[in-house]
């Protein structure tokens, strides 16, 4: 039963992912990606990774994607006619990606894979994850604060307007 849900979800995920990269309008891409993320969240739920399910929806589908959408709108890029790459480049891209996939799958399938289905566990519950995060992984957790601080400062540094720029734009 759960397997069927998995396959349906998988099919939809792949489909929306493809739609995402194929859509001409960036806004459509964003929307497809949001759907993809929701579907992936479904996968998390399926694996009983509740914490991740929630975080994924909040952080990714919610915060990050909204940010994307916001920037797109801000920059007025929601046009239908985004300049497209030439067919040749696209083909090269698709072929490369396809080859990557084939190679990857080829390599991974060779392994003596188990056909056992995934166990149902409750490691993904918030309580369990919290335990691990604040005991074993407290060092990286703390250190990621540096990352955030740096990202914040960086975003401000790059993003804020300043005098010279104003002049450049007014010209």
């Amino acid at each position, binding site marked *: 039963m759960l397997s069927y849900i998995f396959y349906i979800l998988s099919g939809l995920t792949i489909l929306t992912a493809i739609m995402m990269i194929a859509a001409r309008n960036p806004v459509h891409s*964003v929307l497809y990606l949001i759907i993809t993320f929701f579907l992936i969240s479904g996968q998390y739920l399926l694996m009983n990774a509740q914490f991740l399910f929630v*975080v994924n929806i909040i952080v990714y589908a919610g915060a*990050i994607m909204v940010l994307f959408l916001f920037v797109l709108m801000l920059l007025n890029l929601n046009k239908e006619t985004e300049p497209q790459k030439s067919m040749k480049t696209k083909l090269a891209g698709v072929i490369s990606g396809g080859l990557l996939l084939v190679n990857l799958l080829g390599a991974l399938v060779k392994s003596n894979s188990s056909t056992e289905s995934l166990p149902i566990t409750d490691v993904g519950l918030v309580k369990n994850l919290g335990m691990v995060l604040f005991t074993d992984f407290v060092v990286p957790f703390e250190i990621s604060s540096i990352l955030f601080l740096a990202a914040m400062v960086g975003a401000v540094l790059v993003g804020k307007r300043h005098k010279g720029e104003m002049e450049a734009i007014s010209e």
Partner: protein
Amino acid sequence: MPPIDHYIWLSSILFSIGVIGVLIRRNGIVLLMCVELMLNAVNLLFTAFATNFQDSAGQVFVFFIMVVAAAEVAVGLAILVMIYRNTKSVDISLLDKLKQ
């Protein structure tokens, strides 16, 4: 529940789609989105392994990936905005001033 292999397949496919997206799109923002898709594929894989091993560490890692992704997106979008302000475009194909 499907076996772990299928999860690997799924995330490989998603990863590859992300890669293809990076390769065929010109819009910087969309490119960033494709990278996010790749990261999500990885997240999925981690979660699947974590579930398979009944080990929370994998899921914690996913958490960190999300953290990093958020930070990255913040910086990335800031850079894109900066570029846009200077060139009125986020088309990466136009960025070829640095070459010899």
